[in-house]
């Protein structure tokens, strides 16, 4: 006998261990040491969420009721895995190239990024997954109840319900904590995948341990076990061929169509080679999982009193034999199976619900669309968290309503049959270019309705939803609509009947709808990309010309991808085009790339809609459609080659053009500066000369003489300052400067700089997060402070907001620490951003500035000398400068 409290303690310790493992994995991944988290072993183990509590407990019950039929549930996926070259390889490649986030996203993306299809697929997924989630809650509570029962107490409905609520709450917490850290579904969930891999090992070990105990400990070896099997009530081999083939097929198909399997198979896949390993390793896992099922069932039927629930033999047999340790291990195995499935299924469903239902509705509500204020990223994350709670809540409600009781296997099979309704649209979509949105919608709708009518609704029992009279005579007495004898096909096994009719009519409607309708250009483009994913993975263009400004795109991208990611993306694209800075030219290729990156976060349909609001060009052109046509494949290849060549020339030309523009601008600026500098030098000179002449000639009173001398002194100082600046710059530029490195913290430097500019007393409000500023520095601190002073002083001078404010953000980007100085003024025009770091450049009226326009040029030289960098950061609202602090070794290299 195991005390219930001990059991709860063990379970809690186990959960704490899982939290710890997940946390550790996330930490390592953040530090970029994620290689070991992403091996093919971990990938294979993560696939094991196919084996839920249904496998762990239900398979034995299934075997005790219907003999070997349970094997079909594992043979189907085995065939799919062994045949990975056919379907899975294609799915994974498509998932990677198109940045697919979920099953609904695949369907929506394939059929022209259709929002409606995404909603439909999401709806089917949620409805079919709900009973399955309830099933997991039920199995955990039932297994707890077994231990309570062994203490001699009996749990009533209230205790079962509250236990289920606790389990659901704990799972929600775990999933929210580790499942919604990253927005980008393509940024994989390291913590969760590792936790699931650990759970996969635990459940396999538990089931094997119980099996070994049963065969060698109870039955007395392999030979006696086999004779026990042949003497058992299930020894007759009279398997219905229809069910055998039908169930194998449904299990294989469900393996592809279950949202959670799609999540681990396709979305979390980080390397296609892992699939090759999993193709034999996962069937091996399945085989080991089902190896001891029949022995456990037979021994259970033998030793347990008649009428005991065969679904719980895995627990009750060790308990009855007095093996408490084994029973606890077995409980943990069942717990692992249930929790890992719930976590992944919830994440997959929450991604679908937030990307295909919540965000589109929210976008429509706010109207202003992509350029609205506020953080889209935050909304999506919140939607995802709420969806997790919602999905788990649905599972719990179903658990309460159904009240348990139905055999585990029955619920599982109903769920499988429902989810498989996506299969024709999915397989058709990736193999057949002729499939269309209309066909997919028709097939999925009809299949789902028939599934609900023939299997799902009757599963609640006669008179629960569907009255007995309708079951017997059909609705309104129409006999050929009877749920379990559609079109007069009576006498068929109800499950097989439902599988046959739903899939047959689904496929027929899909085919007919596709053949009779005409696809939109976007559908045809996407269809070509999906079907020919191995021939030309190169992206076809869906945007041809665009009126969008790079800065607008950056603002939108920052709200969805996050500031750092978006800036990195824009920077790398600009570098690819041969430009410096953060704003690349808005080419159709770039717009496509950006859309695909965003699709990784919010799904293809939403990303496309948001881009559409900014990029108002015609999105598919005749040329693009020609590229799709097969006959044009050769032309396409030829033009691709030409394009590759001309891309290189494009880059050079762009670089030259940019350099030329810069030179022209500089030359104009230089001319302006020369007249400027002579003016700057002359003005003080004039006053100095005039006043000194007055003094020389005598005449002014003593008071006046002092005043004149003061003016002369001030003007001389101004001259000195100007000459100092010029000298400083020339010294820096010629590399004659000697740096004196010392140690200090960033916070002290910023304090000094703020004090030196007198910014504390001025109208400019400075917003800092002092906690972030505890960065140790080893560099020339005086020089660095000079740069900070310059930037703060600039904000004081030029920030034109009514309540000027300067935000100083310190953050890490990759291995570097950057300091962003962002004010709330109206910023610097894109055209001017190119030249502000050049000498003598000054944008506004020079009187107001009171300097010669050398500050930023000096700052840039200093940062270059120190081994850091300074650049203008567009798209922040106001003027923003980013200082990249020198790394620890920067000075050593000098």
């Amino acid at each position, binding site marked *: 006998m195991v005390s219930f409290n001990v059991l709860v303690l063990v379970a809690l310790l186990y959960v704490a261990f899982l939290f710890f493992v997940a946390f550790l994995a996330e930490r390592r991944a953040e530090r970029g040491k994620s290689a070991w988290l992403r091996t093919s072993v971990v990938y294979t183990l993560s696939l094991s969420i196919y084996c839920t509590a249904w496998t762990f407990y239900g398979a034995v019950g299934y075997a005790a009721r219907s003999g070997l039929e349970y094997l079909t549930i594992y043979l189907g996926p085995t065939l799919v895995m*062994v045949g990975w070259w*056919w379907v899975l390889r294609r799915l994974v490649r498509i998932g*990677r190239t198109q940045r697919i986030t979920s099953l609904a996203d695949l369907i929506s993306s394939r059929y022209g990024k259709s929002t409606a299809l995404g909603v439909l697929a999401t709806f089917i997924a949620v409805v079919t997954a709900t009973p399955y989630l309830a099933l997991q809650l039920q199995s955990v509570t039932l297994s707890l109840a077994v231990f309570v029962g062994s203490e001699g107490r009996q749990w009533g409905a209230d205790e079962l319900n509250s236990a289920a609520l606790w389990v659901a709450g704990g799972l929600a917490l775990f999933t929210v904590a580790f499942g919604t850290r990253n927005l980008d579904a393509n940024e994989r969930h390291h913590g969760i995948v590792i936790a699931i891999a650990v759970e996969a090992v635990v459940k396999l070990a538990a089931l094997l341990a119980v099996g070994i105990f049963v065969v060698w400990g109870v039955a007395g070896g392999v030979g006696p076990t086999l004779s026990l099997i042949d003497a058992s009530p299930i020894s007759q081999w009279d398997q219905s061929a229809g069910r055998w083939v039908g169930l*194998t097929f449904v299990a294989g198909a469900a393996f592809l169509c279950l949202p959670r399997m799609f999540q681990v198979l396709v979305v979390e896949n980080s390397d296609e080679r892992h699939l090759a390993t999993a193709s*034999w390793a996962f069937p091996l896992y399945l085989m080991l999982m089902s190896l001891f099922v029949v022995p456990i069932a037979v021994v259970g039927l033998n030793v347990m009193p008649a009428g005991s629930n065969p679904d719980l033999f895995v627990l009750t047999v060790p308990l009855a034999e007095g093996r408490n340790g084994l029973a606890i291990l077995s409980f943990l195995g069942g717990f692992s199976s249930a929790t890992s499935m719930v976590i992944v299924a919830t994440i997959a469903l929450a991604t679908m619900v937030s990307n295909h239902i919540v965000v589109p509705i929210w976008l429509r509500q706010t109207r202003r669309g992509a350029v609205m204020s506020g953080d889209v990223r935050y909304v999506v994350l919140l939607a995802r968290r709420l969806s997790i709670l919602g999905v788990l809540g649905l599972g719990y409600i179903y658990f309460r309503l159904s009240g348990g009781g139905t055999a585990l296997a029955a619920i599982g099979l109903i769920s499988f049959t429902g989810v498989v309704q996506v299969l024709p649209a999915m397989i058709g979509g990736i193999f057949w270019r002729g499939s269309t949105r209309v066909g997919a919608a028709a097939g999925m709708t009809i299949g789902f309705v028939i599934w609900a009518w023939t299997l799902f609704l009757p599963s609640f029992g006669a008179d629960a939803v569907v009255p007995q009279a309708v079951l017997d005579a059909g609705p309104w007495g129409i006999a050929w609509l009877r749920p379990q004898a559609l079109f007069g096909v009576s006498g068929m096994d109800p499950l097989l009947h439902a599988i046959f009719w739903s899939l047959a009519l689904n496929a027929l409607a899909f085919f007919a709808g596709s053949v009779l309708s005409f696809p939109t250009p976007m559908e045809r483009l996407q269809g070509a990309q999906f079907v020919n994913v191995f021939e030309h993975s190169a992206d076809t263009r869906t945007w041809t010309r665009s009126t969008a400004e790079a800065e607008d795109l950056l603002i939108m991208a920052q709200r969805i991808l996050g500031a750092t990611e978006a800036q990195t993306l824009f920077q*790398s694209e600009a*570098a690819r085009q*041969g430009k*410096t800075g953060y704003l690349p030219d808005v080419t159709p290729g770039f717009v496509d790339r950006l859309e695909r990156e965003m699709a990784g976060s919010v799904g293809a349909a939403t990303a496309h809609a948001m881009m559409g609001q900014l990029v108002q060009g015609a999105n598919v052109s005749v040329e693009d459609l020609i590229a799709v046509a097969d006959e044009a494949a050769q032309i396409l290849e030829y033009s691709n080659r030409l394009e590759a060549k001309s891309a290189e020339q494009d880059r050079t030309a762009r*670089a030259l053009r940019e350099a030329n523009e810069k030179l022209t601008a500089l030359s104009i600026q230089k001319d302006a500066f020369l007249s400027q500098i002579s003016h700057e030098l002359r003005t003080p000179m004039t006053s100095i000369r005039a006043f000194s002449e007055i003094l020389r000639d005598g005449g002014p009173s003593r008071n006046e003489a002092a005043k004149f001398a003061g003016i002369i002194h001030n003007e001389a100082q101004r001259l000195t300052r100007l000459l100092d600046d010029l000298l400083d710059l020339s010294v820096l530029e010629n590399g004659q400067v000697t740096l004196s490195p010392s140690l200090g913290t960033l916070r002290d430097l910023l304090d000094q700089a703020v004090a030196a500019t007198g910014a504390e007393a001025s109208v400019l409000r400075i917003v800092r997060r002092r906690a972030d500023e505890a960065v140790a520095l080893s560099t020339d601190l005086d020089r660095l402070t000079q740069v900070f002073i310059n930037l703060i002083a600039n904000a004081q001078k030029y920030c034109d907001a009514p309540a000027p404010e300067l935000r100083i953000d310190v953050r890490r980007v990759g291995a570097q620490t950057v300091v962003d100085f962002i004010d709330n003024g109206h910023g610097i025009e894109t055209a001017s951003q190119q030249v502000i770091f050049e000498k003598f450049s000054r944008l506004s009226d020079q009187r107001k500035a009171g300097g010669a326009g050398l500050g930023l040029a000096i700052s840039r030289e200093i940062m270059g000398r120190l081994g850091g960098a300074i650049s203008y950061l567009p798209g922040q609202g106001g003027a923003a400068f980013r200082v990249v602090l020198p790394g620890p070794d920067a000075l050593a290299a000098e």
Partner: protein
Amino acid sequence: MMRLPPTPVFLARSTYRQRRMRDVLRSLPVVGAVLMALPLMWPGSGPDAISLSHVLIYLFALWAVMILATFVVVRWLRPDPSPADDAPPPVDGAV
């Protein structure tokens, strides 16, 4: 003096082998499915009735053979060139 065989023959042969290995891989699920359905044709009752334990052993043996076959073929298979990261390679020489 020994003459080495010209390399193109060897290369073509290996490419040819790769193709056939893929064909084997494609055929595996089909063969497996047929063999899995085979026990359905065995008599369940009557004088030649087959016992459940025999079916069980047959199915698990078949399973093991399929796993082994896939393992061997996958080991032979050269990895497909996987698409590089979506990000295009950075270009040096930016002005």
